[in-house]
């Protein structure tokens, strides 16, 4: 499975100290918790050593993966035939999400994935229609830890967005 090849490459980047930490997010990350939704790319959030520069640069990541056969395509790196987008942790919520990423194993392949409560909070923060749909799926997944999510919305200033989301959903059965 191509996605497993991507997970293996991400683990290699950690082992080779190219990134400190990573976690899969977006629709692929959400698939670990809810029903799959079609997507064309893989979102990977990363933390890496920035001590050498004040500017966040993805160049070391691009160099590393292109040396291993990836191809640059716009803002993506194509790995195992999937466009992969590396997103530096630039907001407190995403930084926290990376700290609390969940280690999973799929068919023997290790991978780090954002927790579903963090994915839901990021969806709330991002706020596009597809994010709202995803958020509603998390809420009804049956494994969602609502208290943990509520704490995240409080801590990261999302209570107003949450109130608007609830108002939007109020008429839903």
């Amino acid at each position: 499975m191509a996605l497993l090849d991507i997970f293996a490459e991400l683990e290699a980047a950690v082992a080779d100290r190219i990134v400190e930490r990573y976690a899969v997010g977006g629709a692929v990350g959400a698939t670990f918790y809810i029903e799959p939704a079609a997507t064309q790319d893989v979102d990977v959030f990363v933390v890496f050593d920035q001590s050498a520069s004040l500017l966040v640069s993805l160049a070391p990541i691009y160099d590393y993966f292109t040396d291993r056969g990836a191809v640059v395509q716009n803002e993506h790196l194509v790995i195992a035939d999937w466009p992969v987008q590396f997103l530096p942790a630039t907001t407190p919520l995403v930084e926290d999400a990376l700290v609390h990423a969940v280690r999973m194993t799929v068919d023997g392949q290790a991978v780090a994935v954002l927790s579903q409560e963090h994915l839901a909070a990021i969806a709330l923060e991002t706020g596009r229609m597809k994010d709202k749909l995803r958020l509603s799926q998390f809420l009804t997944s049956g494994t969602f830890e609502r208290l943990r999510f509520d704490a995240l919305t409080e801590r990261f200033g999302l209570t107003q967005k949450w109130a608007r989301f609830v108002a939007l959903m109020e008429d839903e059965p």
Partner: protein
Amino acid sequence: MDEALRIKRASRVAMTATPIAEKLRILERLRERDRAIGRAVIAPEQRPTRDASA
């Protein structure tokens, strides 16, 4: 509860319980389907924008 909604919720719960590997395979098949009908990642600068004068 509306029957269609009940069935949808039941299928959602069932999908949540589906092994992750199987769900990832479904994701790959969905992408293959989309590619077959011409959907692909479009760079932000290449996405169509609404004409501001319209």
